């Protein structure tokens, strides 16, 4: 077990190194020029050249990459071009907001997915099942920004129940979390349904029913625990997906997380911040999967035995 975790951590480090290399190469190859961006439109060629030298952009690619890697290994993500501050500090300042949003979003999608999935499995083949399955398809096919704008229009503009945008109170988190949750719940509902159907057909569930146990007890104590495993794997994947996907939701709701930070940085060609957010997102993806792999044997003795 410990060996496995160690090996996975080493893999994680290699993957992050690879992600850093590819992102750096891509940003280096792109035609956008950060020096020109900082200097502004009216700057002279001399000013631009000075800024370029100051940022180390006049160095050849291998030198730039090495300098960057060297920094990362010391826990230094570099300095923002536009904001002139430490990228690590900028990201750490924004991270809590994104984590709150992510936790709330995952909560909504898991609860919604569980309820819908269980109902569909119990009413398998019936009209309720079909409606739930159709709804789950609609959920996974809906564009994030349209759902965000729609919720904003109905619940903030028309009904006035929730604030339009911003951060600070519990009411602020409802709409962004609902946007993320509604979109993700479809996958969970489908997965819970198929896991439940597999289990409900097993002999031990029939035995439990024959013993006279109530439906609720059978579902909660005998069937549901078996659906937990795929859900945990899914949450692991989701953690990573959210980090990449929050850009849109944070943009619509003015949520001051790392998605917003990334979006501003992209518009300013602020490469250190773009690199930093990409690395943090990649780290989240890898850690999410790792977490799922570590938790799985803790709740399922069958995996532990292997």
């Amino acid at each position: 077990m410990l060996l496995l975790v160690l090996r996975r951590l080493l893999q994680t480090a290699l993957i992050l190194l690879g992600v850093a290399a590819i992102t750096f190469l891509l940003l280096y190859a792109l035609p956008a020029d950060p020096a020109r961006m900082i200097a502004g439109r009216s700057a002279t060629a001399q000013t631009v050249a000075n800024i370029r030298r100051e940022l180390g952009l006049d160095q050849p690619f291998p030198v730039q990459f090495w300098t960057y890697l060297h920094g990362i290994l010391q826990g230094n993500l570099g300095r923002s071009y536009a904001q002139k501050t430490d990228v690590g500090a900028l990201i750490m300042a924004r991270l809590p907001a994104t984590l709150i949003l992510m936790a709330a979003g995952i909560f909504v999608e898991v609860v919604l997915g569980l309820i819908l999935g269980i109902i569909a499995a119990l009413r398998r083949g019936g009209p309720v099942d079909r409606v739930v399955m159709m709804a789950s398809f609609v959920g996974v096919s809906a564009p994030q920004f349209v759902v965000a704008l729609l919720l904003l229009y109905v619940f903030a503009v028309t009904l006035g129940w929730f604030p339009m945008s911003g951060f600070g109170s519990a009411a602020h988190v409802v709409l962004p979390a609902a946007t993320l949750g509604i979109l993700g719940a479809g996958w969970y509902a489908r997965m819970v349904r198929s896991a439940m159907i597999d289990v409900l057909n097993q002999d031990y569930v029939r035995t439990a029913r024959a013993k006279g146990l109530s439906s609720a007890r059978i579902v909660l104590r005998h069937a549901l625990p078996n659906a937990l495993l795929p859900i945990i794997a899914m949450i692991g994947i989701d953690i990573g997906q959210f980090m990449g996907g929050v850009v849109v939701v944070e943009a619509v709701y003015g949520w001051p997380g790392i998605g917003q930070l990334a979006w501003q940085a992209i518009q300013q060609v602020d490469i250190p911040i773009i690199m930093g957010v990409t690395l943090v997102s990649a780290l989240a993806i890898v850690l999410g999967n790792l977490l799922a792999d570590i938790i799985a044997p803790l709740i399922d003795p069958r995996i532990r035995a292997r």
Partner: protein
Amino acid sequence: MHVLKTMLRQPSALFGLIIVTVVVLMALGAPWIAPYSPDNQMFDGLSIEGAPLPPSTRFLLGTDTLGRDLFSRLLFGARTSLVIGLVANGIAVAIGLLVGVLSGYLRGAVGGLLMRFTDLMMAFPALLLAIVLAALLHPSLWIVAMVIALVNWVQVARIVYTETRGLVERDFILAERSLGAGHLRILFVHILPHLMPTAIVWGTLGIATTVLLEATLSFLGIGVQPPQPSWGNIIFESQSYFQAAPWLVFFPGAIILLTALSFNLVGDALRDILDPTQRGRG
């Protein structure tokens, strides 16, 4: 024929097929169906105060902030979405097939390297990568298609890899090899045909993803650039106005949703029909 007949019997697949057909007809027939030119900024397309007009008999779905007919713009937007959907997703499936087959068939150092690269790409935040690339390159229809293809091939490669690994072990491949067939013959005559169902299913499901991704990039203003209409940039252009003119968000949003939903429904039905082992699973 069998595939089509089976699909027509399922209400959800039938619904998907109908909507897909309608969207394709919209895209093909846009110049003839559209009541106005999509770029025509009509003088009577705005209210006296200069605000967009709500849906009426003259402007079926209303007008946008520049007084252009929304219905006409949506028709031409269908072209943009479908072209990107087909091109981007076609390239993604092709790359995915190539990488997946090669890494599954070759094994060894080359195969291992390809698969490690795929693993690496799996850890990449795809949407973020697409946003960064699209924003820093000069956005155009083809750039958007390339960016989407670049982030979407990974999943296909993974699945094709697993399938190829399974196929290579099978007896008929061994028999073929002992008869002296070369690698190319085995790959093209024996392995690729078995992967076609997967390619077709992902070719369809992927269009849904692609349409959504294009809309998202355009919504952020880094996708297809106005005045060329795309469903995403119609919303982008009018989002600051959407409280006063919600139809400008609602109609494009609805058609994006319907299109993605339909390709998902058709793709899912195809998977059930072409791959019986997946039947009944989520």
